[in-house]
C-alpha cells in the first residue's frame, strides 16, 4: 500500500520517454524509442513529482499487487530491475521492453500515448514509476540526438507531463519492500477511466501492468458498508445527523455511479464534527479510503444479476441494517 510518507520521500533518479502509437491492422507503425534517458533539472523533477503525488495519492488511486496468472512481462521486469543495486546501464533497455509490450497491447480502442519510465527510490528503497500520457493522434513529438543517440526533447515533459491541464494520466508506482518476488508496495491510478468501469478500456492499465487490486472491490465495499453503519449506530448521537448519514450511506450504495471512494463520501456527506473520527474509524476497521469500492449497481453487474439486483449477501446486510436502524 502506498502511503503519503512514501510519496513524500519519492526521488526520481532517471526518466525516459517513448512514443507508443496504436497498432492498427493494415497500417505499419512502430514505437519510437529513446536511446538515452532524459536530462532533468531540479525544478522539473520537483514539478513532475508533484503531479505524480496528486495522481497516485488521489481518491481515485488504488492499491495493487502483481497478478500471478498474468501474461504481462511487466511484473518480472520490475522484480528483476529492482533487485540489488541500481544498474544504470540496464535502465534504457528495460524501459524499451515496457514500450514494446505496450505497443503490442495497444490495439482496438486504446489510444496512442507517451510512455515514461522512471527509476526511483522511496526512503532508500528501489522503485519504478510507469506513466502513460494520452496524446492527440497525429501530434508530433520533437526528437533530437544527443551523443549520437535518439531522445525526446524536454518539450515532451513540459507540454505533456507538466501542463496542469493534462488530465489523461495512467500512472503506477512499485516500491520494493523486501527480497521476495511479491515484496512490493504498489499503487496505480487511471484518471481517464476508473477501474470499476465494465468496459475493456478500464481494465487495460491493470492488464498491461500485470496487476490486480489488492482487495476485491466486493470485499472492500462490504467492509465499508459494515463499518459505516457501525459508526452511524454507535458514534453519532444526534438523531437527525444519524438519519442523514444513514440515508447517505444507503443512497451512495445504491446510486447510479459504479464506484465510489470513502474519502469523497466523507467530504460530501459526513458532518464536519465527525469527519476525522469517521475516517479514523474506517482506518481502524481496515477499510481502504480510496476509489476501490463498487456500488450495488456495479456489484450486481459483476455477479451477473440484473442491474438493480445487489448480490445476495450485501442485499441481505443492507436490508438487515436498515431494519435495525
Amino acid at each position, binding site marked *: 500500500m502506498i502511503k503519503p510518507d512514501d510519496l513524500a520521500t519519492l526521488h526520481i533518479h532517471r526518466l525516459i520517454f517513448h512514443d507508443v502509437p496504436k497498432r492498427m491492422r493494415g497500417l505499419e507503425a512502430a514505437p519510437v524509442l529513446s536511446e538515452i534517458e532524459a536530462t532533468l533539472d531540479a525544478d522539473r523533477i520537483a*514539478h513532475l513529482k508533484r503531479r505524480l503525488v*496528486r495522481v497516485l495519492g*488521489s481518491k481515485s488511486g488504488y492499491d495493487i499487487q502483481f497478478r500471478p496468472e498474468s501474461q504481462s512481462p511487466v511484473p518480472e521486469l520490475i522484480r528483476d530491475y529492482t533487485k540489488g543495486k541500481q544498474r544504470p546501464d540496464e535502465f534504457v533497455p528495460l524501459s524499451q521492453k515496457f514500450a514494446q509490450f505496450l505497443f503490442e497491447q495497444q490495439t482496438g480502442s486504446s489510444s496512442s500515448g507517451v510512455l515514461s519510465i522512471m527509476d526511483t527510490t522511496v526512503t532508500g528503497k528501489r522503485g519504478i514509476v510507469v506513466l502513460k500520457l494520452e496524446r492527440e493522434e497525429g501530434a508530433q513529438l520533437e526528437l533530437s540526438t544527443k551523443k549520437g543517440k535518439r531522445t525526446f526533447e524536454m518539450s515532451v515533459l513540459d507540454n505533456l507531463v507538466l501542463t496542469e491541464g493534462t488530465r489523461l494520466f495512467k500512472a503506477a508506482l512499485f516500491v520494493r519492500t523486501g527480497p521476495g518476488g511479491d515484496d512490493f508496495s504498489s499503487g496505480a491510478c487511471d484518471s481517464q477511466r476508473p477501474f470499476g468501469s465494465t468496459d475493456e478500456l478500464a481494465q487495460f492499465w491493470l492488464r498491461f501492468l500485470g496487476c490486480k487490486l489488492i482487495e476485491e472491490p466486493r470485499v472492500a465495499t462490504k467492509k465499508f458498508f459494515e463499518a459505516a453503519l457501525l459508526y452511524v449506530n454507535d458514534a453519532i448521537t444526534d438523531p437527525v445527523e444519524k438519519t442523514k448519514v444513514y440515508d447517505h450511506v444507503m443512497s451512495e450504495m445504491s446510486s447510479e455511479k459504479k464506484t465510489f471512494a470513502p474519502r469523497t463520501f466523507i467530504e460530501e456527506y459526513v458532518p464536519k464534527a465527525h469527519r476525522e473520527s469517521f475516517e479514523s474509524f474506517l482506518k481502524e476497521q481496515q477499510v481502504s479510503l480510496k476509489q476501490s469500492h463498487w456500488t450495488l449497481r456495479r456489484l450486481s453487474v459483476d455477479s451477473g444479476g440484473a442491474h438493480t439486483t445487489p448480490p445476495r449477501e450485501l442485499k441481505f446486510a443492507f436490508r438487515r441494517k436498515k431494519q435495525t436502524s
Partner: protein
Amino acid sequence: MSRSDLEQARVSWLADEASFREFGQLVKSGLEAEIKRLGIKAEVSMRTKDIDSLIKKLILKPEHTYESLGDKVGIRAVVRYQREVDEIVASMPSVCGCSEPDDTRQRLADEKDERVGYISIHLDTWLKDDHSLLAQFPKTKYRAEVQVRTLAQHLWSEISHDTSYKSRTKIRKDLKRRIHLLAGLIEVADNEFSRIDDDMSKMPDMAEFMILKALERQYYKLSARPGNTDLSLEVIRHLWQLYEQSPEQVSMRFGVLLDEKQAVLQDVFDQMTKTSKGRSAFFFQPEILLIYDQLQSQPYKLREHWSERFPPEELEMVATAFGHSFA
C-alpha cells in the same frame, strides 16, 4: 619577529591558505550539523585570515611564530540567547577535538587584566582522532578558533574591534568606567532577551508565542532558514485551537512528531531546498510542522480553517510536498 621570518610566513600562508580553508569548511560543517541537531537558530560563518591580517598579528604578537598562530581559521556562530551559547559550547567535544573554552568572563574578573569589555567564548579546535581526514589535516598543524556568541556579544565585539577597548594600553579611569557601564548595559540586554524569551514561552495567555517557541526548537533541527515571525504568529493564531488542547499540550506535540518523523521530514526539507519553483511560501516557516501534524491527524478541519484565512493553493502545495493529494 625578523623581516625574513615575516617574509617566510607570507610565503607559507600563500601556500597553505587553500588547505586551511578546506579544513575550516570541515569544522564549520560539523558545527552546523551539531547546531541543527540542537535545534538552535544560528548564523555560522568561516574565514581564513587574509595575508595582511596574518602579518599584522605576527607583528603585534611577537611571542607567536607562523606555526603557533592559532586563529588562521576562524569560525563563528552567532545565536540569540546565552543559554544557546552554553549548549553549543558544551556539545563541541562531540563535533571535534577542542581546548577548554576560553571564557572572557574569567579573564575580566582578573583585576590585574587592564582590558575592559564583554563576554566572548572561544575554543581551539582540531579534527578528532578518528576522523577519516586526520592524515590530510593533522592536528599539530590544522587548528581553527571557534567563537560562539549571542547577537549582543557580537555587537560588542564588532564595535570594540574597531576601537581600543580590547587593547592592553592603559585606559583613563573615567573612560574605563564608561566602557564598563556600556558592557554592563549590553550584558543586561542579553540577560533580558533571554528572560523575556523564557517568560514568553511559558505564558498560557500568549499561546501563539509559546507554540512558536516550541515549533522553532524543532524546525531548526530541519532547516537553518529563518521564517517570517509575523506570518508564523498569524498561522499559529488561526490554527492552534484545532487541537482542542492547552498551549502546553500543543507545544509538547512537536518534539514527539519530530522523533517519529524526522527522516521523512528531513527528506522533504532537502527536496524543497533544491527547488524554488512551486514551493509554498509557507514551507520554510516553523509552523510548517504544525501544518504537517494537522495534515496527518485532521486534514478536513485543517482545510476548512485554512481556507478561511489563507490561500487554499498554498496548503495544497504543502500537502503535496508531504505526499498528500487533495484530488
